[in-house]
């Protein structure tokens, strides 16, 4: 199979370039990550992140034939050749397919991704009814692979100011949580022309999410809550 892989070595002093690679591999039943690891066996200088190899850790997010996705759950047989692999767009490249996710994590950190509850700690746990728990479905599954935020033009233009789809999905995950008591403060933090309202409902995030989540819907819910609070 034919591959075209983005290569960049910061120590070489050379500009990034696409490298053509031929690999003898039967695609049936294999994922893209299997091919990448086979290529890495031949050329150990190829750098990429990967860990769980089953779409749970979110490490091997990359741009596959122009679309962000996880290499470990992308069937090799379904990809058009040459398979073009680039690092996630919009973030600084550290080496080959590895990007610097600092901006992404900074935005995630900025939404305070943890329960804020000032009640005394209960003996066992903070209980939820099944209906309250159901509010978190479609939100808690996010693995922070960064496929969505790096597919979002608004995040490309303003990564320092716009929280991005992943961060906003998580912001809504805590707003929707019945055990959280900081809803108003969270909405205050997001009521901002840059932090929330850079989202123009382009929906690239929904298109690429490897877990099938819908950040645009979560952002819509946050907007609805803000409207509810304002008018």
């Amino acid at each position, binding site marked *: 199979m034919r591959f075209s892989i983005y290569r960049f070595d910061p120590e070489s002093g050379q500009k990034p370039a696409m490298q053509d690679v031929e690999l003898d591999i039967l695609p049936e039943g294999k994922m893209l990550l299997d091919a990448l690891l086979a290529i890495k066996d031949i050329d150990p200088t190829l750098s990429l992140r990967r860990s769980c190899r089953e779409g749970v850790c979110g490490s091997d997010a990359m741009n596959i034939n122009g679309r962000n996705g996880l290499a470990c759950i992308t069937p090799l047989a379904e990809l058009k050749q040459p398979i073009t692999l680039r690092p996630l767009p919009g973030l600084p490249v550290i080496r080959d397919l590895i990007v610097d996710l*600092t*901006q992404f994590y*900074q*935005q995630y*950190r*900025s939404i305070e991704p943890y329960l804020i509850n000032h009640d005394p700690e209960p003996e066992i746990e903070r209980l939820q009814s099944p209906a309250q728990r159901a509010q978190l479905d479609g939100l808690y599954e996010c693995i922070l692979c960064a496929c969505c935020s790096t597919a979002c*033009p*608004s995040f490309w*233009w*303003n990564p*320092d*100011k716009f929280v991005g789809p992943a961060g906003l999905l998580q912001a809504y995950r805590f707003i929707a949580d019945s055990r959280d008591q900081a809803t108003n403060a969270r909405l*205050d*933090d997001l*009521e*901002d*022309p*840059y*932090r*929330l*309202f*850079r989202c*123009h409902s382009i929906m690239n995030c929904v298109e690429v999410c490897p877990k099938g989540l819908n950040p645009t819907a979560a952002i819509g819910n946050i*907007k609805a809550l*803000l*409207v509810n609070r*304002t*008018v």
Partner: protein
Amino acid sequence: MVSRVVSGAHYGVRDWLVQRFSAVIMLVYSVTLIAYLVMHQPMQYAMWHALFSYASMRYFTLLFALSLYLHAWVGVRDILMDYVRLTWIRLTLQVATIVALVLYTMWIVTILWSVK
């Protein structure tokens, strides 16, 4: 790095709502006008003139134009916020946009009420 001075401008909801409601008004006006045009074929100058002689039609058209300008203001400002990095250039362009839209408003009032 995340900029430390971006949280808490505390606006955005109203503009977002304005954009949605102005879109609805523009849609209603457009559908109404297109329906009128389709039902009154062939369109003659006299009929067109008579249509815009009604005060209600003038106000409806003005409402449409104002919706368009408000809608355009939010949209153009969004584009400037996305793409223009330097604050002073962004501010200059935003002021220029406001001036243009105010002039357009005066212009359409002149046009609509010039129909004798």
